[in-house]
């Protein structure tokens, strides 16, 4: 029991360390960092005091602590999947706009079409926003 507790907590701490040390960490919002920190803290407590999780589970009408953790995990995974999907679409859209810009500029150049006056529609919308 002690061994598994040690391993789990070591894993959580390592995850936390990697997340904080990550070079892109400064671009993640503070609220997300706090949420992640809270999640890690809850996980450490849950590993150290399984009885506590069971009392919380009983409080909300779930029999066992492990069941409550499972349900919460399912919900968290659902959020993760949707968030990841939307973020993937966002970065795909950015990539497509970049590639489109390259393709159009390259073609205009190749055909010798004057495009200096042509306003970049993306740049314009950025100015407005």
């Amino acid at each position, binding site marked *: 029991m002690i061994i598994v507790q040690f391993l789990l907590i070591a894993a959580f701490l390592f995850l936390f360390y990697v997340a904080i040390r990550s070079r892109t960490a400064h671009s993640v919002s503070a609220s997300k960092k706090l949420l992640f920190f809270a999640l890690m803290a809850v996980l450490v407590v849950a590993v150290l005091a399984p009885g506590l999780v069971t009392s919380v589970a009983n409080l909300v009408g779930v029999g066992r602590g492990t069941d409550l953790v499972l349900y919460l995990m399912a919900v968290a995974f659902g959020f993760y999947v949707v968030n990841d999907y*939307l973020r993937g679409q966002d970065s*795909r*859209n950015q*990539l*497509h706009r970049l*590639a*489109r810009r*390259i*393709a*159009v500029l*390259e*073609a*205009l150049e190749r*055909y010798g*079409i004057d*495009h200096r006056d*042509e306003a970049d*529609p993306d740049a314009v919308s950025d100015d407005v926003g």
Partner: protein
Amino acid sequence: MVPVYNEAEVIGSVIADVLTVCPTIVCVNDGSSDASAAEIVKAGGYLVDHPINMGQGAALQTGIEFARALPHIQRFVTFDADGQHLVADAVRMLELLATEELDIVLGSRFLGDTVGASGAKKLLLKAAVKFSNATSGIRLTDAHNGLRAFNRHVAETMEITASDMTHASEIIELIAANDYRYREVPVTIHYTDYSTSKGQASVNAVNIAVDTLLRRVTRS
């Protein structure tokens, strides 16, 4: 504008066909791995080359953005690369655009003739129309027809973000959102063995439905 992805076999004759009625043709080569790009240049079309494969909707948007940089072009047509459309239909749509107070003219299979489509395909397309009418608020008889004609106003304001086959539904949503004056006209689709083998699988309808609903959720 013709979005092209691995259509080297037929793109040359499609371009030659279109050039008999239109002065300019813009082909967007969507990262084809075959000789499509060379065929486009050989046939005398403007070639815009995607550095990576991005999907038909993305290719259409690229074609629109290149074509609107050509100052002399006032009317635009989207045309499929696989030879399933007739240039005569495109001409009729352009004439309508020139003479009537319209921003965009859409081709419809169900007002016209469909040659060679299976019963199941027809049924699926009809279901897609019902779905589109319910979600977009625009009443059409054909939601996924690649033949469209529109004026410069539409070309300047069109912003397709759906990269894959979902773009057809997105264009209809844009018609509703931007209050384009639209009309549907009957067109003939020629389903050849070639176009059927290249066309989208029917299971794709599920993708289109899900993406359409997701777009509604995330935009509202």
